[in-house]
């Protein structure tokens, strides 16, 4: 009886089960795919040039007409109301002010109209000048106002837009994880 069982065992084929090995291989593959190889980024630093500065702003060639909008931060804007013949003027804070040439407003629609008029005036001149947009924004101005003006430029068909900016002051600032700005009240001044 015992010899019969032993004979059955020796007759069985020794097959290798590959499925678990493939499973484990896949898991190891996924694990290494997910690992961030930060050392590779570190090596690239060696190729970086060290004397970087802001690009000089090129003077616009004479055949370009600039449509410039200056976005300023919160301002006190005088508002006048008429009351039975008399007029009351009260200073009201506005969240943003747009400056176009020598005109100021907090109404974006008006800015859009001014941009469109400027483009029409440039086209009416009959010259070959290209019309370019220009945005000067105060450093604490929220990004949404810049995009809003960009939207108005796009609406007027102005695709080329220049942005005015300041140089990054000093190499230390470039290594800070977060630039030193107050998280709140950044709207109190615009420039």
């Amino acid at each position, binding site marked *: 009886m015992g010899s019969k069982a032993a004979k059955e065992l020796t007759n069985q084929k020794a097959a290798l089960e590959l499925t678990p090995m493939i499973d484990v291989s*896949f898991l190891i593959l996924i694990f290494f795919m997910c690992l961030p190889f930060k050392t590779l980024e570190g090596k690239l630093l060696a190729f*970086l040039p060290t004397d970087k500065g*802001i690009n000089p702003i090129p003077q616009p060639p004479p055949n370009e007409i600039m449509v410039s909008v200056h976005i300023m931060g919160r301002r006190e804007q005088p508002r006048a109301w008429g009351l039975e013949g008399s007029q009351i003027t009260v200073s009201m804070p506005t969240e943003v002010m747009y400056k176009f040439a020598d005109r100021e407003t907090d109404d974006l629609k008006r800015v859009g109209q001014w941009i469109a008029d400027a483009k029409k005036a440039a086209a009416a001149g009959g010259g070959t000048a290209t019309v370019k947009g220009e945005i000067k924004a105060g450093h604490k101005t929220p*990004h949404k106002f810049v*995009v809003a003006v960009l939207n108005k430029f796009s609406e007027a068909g102005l695709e080329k837009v220049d942005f005015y900016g300041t140089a990054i002051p000093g190499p230390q600032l470039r290594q800070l994880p*977060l*630039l030193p700005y107050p998280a709140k009240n950044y709207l109190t001044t615009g420039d």
Partner: protein
Amino acid sequence: MSKLSEISQDSGELDMTPMIDIVFNLLIFFLVVSDLNQKDLAELTLPIAYMALEDKGDDPDDRVILNVDNRGRILFRGQPKNLDELGTILDQAVRVYNIKTKGEGFVEVAPGAKASKLFVLLRADKDTPWQHVQYLMTIMAERKLYKCQFACSKYIGKGYKGEEGIKEARMIGGITQDEYKAQGGQ
């Protein structure tokens, strides 16, 4: 005859183990891949611009996606970066793009001056102080990266909820999808 009876006695059970293994592997793979894709786009409230074009997504090698949150923190693939690190990332992206385009990754913008054709998608929160975005653009300009895209929401929606949100969105020219269609937009 005896062989036939042996076969008929075998139970027709299906071995589920390899199938379950493969299903789990696929599940993990897609979980990881989808997570990595999401990391490119940080959770931000984007500014509104109804003239914005629909973004169909580009090849990751053809565009660098940079995120700036409302505190001015730069996020690249979910990781905060300083301006120096960002410069390194952009250098590498320009190099990869140039290799991919077989040296055709630059365009002559002026006599003797070349700029990269690589796009940079700037995803800044609506409340990010402009200085942070502008510094990012300075880093880009240093690497001759002039092709810049600003990520925007097309209509009033996410992040502009409630009366205050709608009021704020209106102030910067935000419109609803219905209003856009009423103006003849598609």
